[in-house]
Every structure is written in C-alpha cells, then in structure tokens.
C-alpha cells in the first residue's frame, strides 16, 4: 500500500509542502481536523506563524490528538513555525504553549526581523550529493537540547535541524526550494 503524508492545513505555506510531496510521487492530504489524522501515515507542520497555528490547533483540540499520536510513534516533520510548535518550549516567549514532543528549546526570530532573513548553503547529516540551500525566514534556532536529540545540521555552530525518534525539525524551509532531499529523508522515517 502506498503511503499518504498529511500537511497540517491550518495556516502557512501548505501548498509548497504538498507540491514537493507530489513531485516525489507521494499522495499529500491537507489535514485540518483531528479526525483527518487517521487517514495519513505521517504529518508535516508547515512554516507560518507559530502563534496562529497553535491557536487554531487548540480550537479543534488538534494539539491533543496529535500529541497522543506522536507519542505512539507517528512520524512528524516541522519546518520553522512547525519546529516551534513541536518543541518543548520557547526561550524568549516562555508563556508560549507547544506540543513538547521533542526535547529542544527554541528561540523565536533568533536571527532578527525580516531584513535579517537569509539563504545559506548547509551540510546536512543524512543528505548526500552536496550542500543544501537553506532558506531562513525570521527563523528560530535550537538553543538547548536533550541527550536523545540528534543534531543533523548546524549553521555557524548553531543547531538548525534535529531529530528525536519519530520527530524531525528544521529552522529552514526545504519546501521553498526545488530540492526534495530533506523531504526524502523524512519519508525514510515512515
């Protein structure tokens, strides 16, 4: 049976993830409600505004349903805002709620405001055939992490991509490139 990958469809660059999955020949399903989670084998939380995505998750209790599934081994990948949502907390906005399914603490807008947003070439563990173009947009950084977390990529000695079991996160946006390698890495986790 072929796999279906969900993209959390509340807010953000949903279409870009769907398009990259399609390019890989994977069926992508936009997931808006908790019951839709049952139809997919894995989930991507896209970039967007983490505060908005979280509020919309809470209204339908998507946050509770998703946390429960992830704790049972459901593979999930969060880019930028998605990484913040999956993290165990936000250093500079300690009151911000998160799913706490990966043992990392993040700093929001760690590089500054939009004028500081940038692109840079990255060396990612598990991604072969050369460097990967990382697109960082008001991006978060991992400022602290637990011993079970594997850091897959650093930018200027700061961790920007990590994995713990079935949870994958990145500060940057592979979905804004034509490069499918990071998504392929996630598909291997399913």
């Amino acid at each position, binding site marked *: 049976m072929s796999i279906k990958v969900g993209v959390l469809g509340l807010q953000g660059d949903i279409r870009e993830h769907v398009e990259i999955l399609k390019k890989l020949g994977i069926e992508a399903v936009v997931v808006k409600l908790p019951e839709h989670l049952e139809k997919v084998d894995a989930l991507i939380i896209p970039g967007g505004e983490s505060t908005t995505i979280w509020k919309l998750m809470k209204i339908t209790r998507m946050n509770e349903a998703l946390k429960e599934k992830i704790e049972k081994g459901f593979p999930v990948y969060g880019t930028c805002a998605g990484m913040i949502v999956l993290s165990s907390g936000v250093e500079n906005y300690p009151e911000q709620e998160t799913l706490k399914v990966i043992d990392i603490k993040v700093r929001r807008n760690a590089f500054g*405001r939009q004028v500081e*947003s940038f692109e840079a070439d990255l060396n990612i563990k598990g991604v072969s055939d050369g460097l990967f173009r990382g697109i960082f947009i008001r991006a978060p950084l991992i400022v602290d992490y637990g011993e079970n977390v594997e850091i897959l990529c650093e930018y200027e000695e700061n961790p920007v991509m990590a994995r713990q079991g079935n949870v994958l996160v990145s500060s940057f946006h592979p979905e804004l490139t034509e490069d499918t390698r990071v998504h392929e890495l996630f598909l291997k986790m399913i």
Partner: protein
Amino acid sequence: MEDKGTWVVKKGFAEMFKNGVIMDVTTAEQARIAEEAGAVAVMALERVPADIRKQGGVARMASIAKIKEIMNAVSIPVMAKCRIGHIAEAKILEAIGVDFIDESEVLTPADERFHINKHEFKVPFVCGARDLGEALRRIAEGAAMIRTKGEAGTGNVVEAVRHMRQVMDEIRRVKNMLDDELVTYAKEIGAPVELVKMVKELGRLPVVNFAAGGVATPADAALMMMLGADGVFVGSGIFKSKEPVKMARAIVQAVLHYDDPEMLAKISEDIGQPMEGSEIKDLEIRLQERGW
C-alpha cells in the same frame, strides 16, 4: 556565504502569511489583541483607513514612535505603510526593521508617475492592484506580495470582490491563451511579457495574492477566500466594530473554514455589531484610483 533580502527570502516570507489574517492596529494594546486573536501579522498605523477618510488632509507614513511601540508589543511580524513612490519613507521603515512595507494607496501618493523600485530593498513589499496588468507591473517593480485594493475604510466588500474577480478572470484567460497571443495581451494590459508567461505556466500570480479593502465580517473574509484569495487584510473592520476581540477571532477562523458553511454559521453567531459601512457612489475620494 549567506545572502540576505533575496527574492526567494522576500517572496517566501509572504508565503508564510497564507490562510492568515493581517490586521490594522493603531496602538500596542490593539496589536496584542490582534496577536491574541491569531493574526499572522499586524499593520502599524497612525489612523485606520475609515478615520483617514473622515479626517481628510495628507495621510503620511505613521510616526516612528508609533511603529516602534507596536513592534515592541508583539512577537508576530509588523508591517507599515509608505506613500506610493515615497522612497525615503520606505528607506526609513526598512531602517527601523519593519518586516513588510505596504506601498499603499490609502496614504496620499508622493509620486504621480512612478512607484518605488522595490528590488532595491531587503525588506519585502506588498502593493494593491485592481487587475492583472496592475498586479504584474507591481511585481515587475519588485513587490513580493499583491493584494486587492478594494475600497479601504468603507466596510463595503464590493470593490475587493470586483478586483479579485477581475484578476482571477484574467488569469483564467491567460491560461487558455496560445503562446502566440501573449505578447499582444501583455501590451494590452501594460505588463511585462515574461510575467504574463509565468502566469500562464503557474495558473496563478507568481506571488501571494491577498484580499483587502472593505472586509468587515467573517462572511466577507470567507467570500474573499472562496474567490481565490490566499488570505485577508482587515483594516478598519476589526477596531471599528463594537466588539473587536470577538470580531478578530471570528475572522481568523472564517479564513480557515471558508468552505464549511456550518462552521461559518457558528463562527458568525456571536460577533457583535460590525463597523458601519458606506456606499461607494457616495464617496468623495476613491482611494483605489491611486496607483499607476
């Protein structure tokens, strides 16, 4: 090895706003209400469009103190408006670190012939458009995001609908054109042929396309999403309504659930009194006619 302010980074940032609501705010308190309601960004203003319209005179960029106050109040992105063609206002907004600039017809134009060359900036710009030609001219100048002009400050959605339908209709026509026809069509609508070709390939604008100008209720926001908007700007519609907290929250949810009538009904149930609206034909100034 890092490149800041590239086209990919500017256009990509706009993609992050999709399915979101951007709200006009005039104080730090309003900005916090907007963030709490789930806005994806706020537009920092001295006065909302409805008041600009009422008070008349020259409308300029908001004061630096006002914009900074709002930037310090919230964690979400902060946008600000500059006058059409006012390069210096835009440079100032970029220098203080505003996340997005709206080169806006709501303010009094500074240049009656030229818009800002937005490629020259690291900060991304959004511009208003009433048709495909205008949208593509703005993109050619470097706009990373387009919105309908609508008719700001009226609480009347009819002009935003007209502009969104117009752009979508022209996109559909381009999609069905033969390649032979594109050069002449580009000339007719006053747009660069390369961008017209790109629209034909993509079947949409090459940047994010929001609705703006007259959205006053959750149903208005849902309507604009049904017509193909990627998200919605709400100007006077939130803080000129009787219960801004409820209205803000309801509009955020309506953008997400625009295709689910039962949800929309529930969302629209307890929102208080929307802002008062005006008839377009009774207006002294039509802001949408500014821009070239």
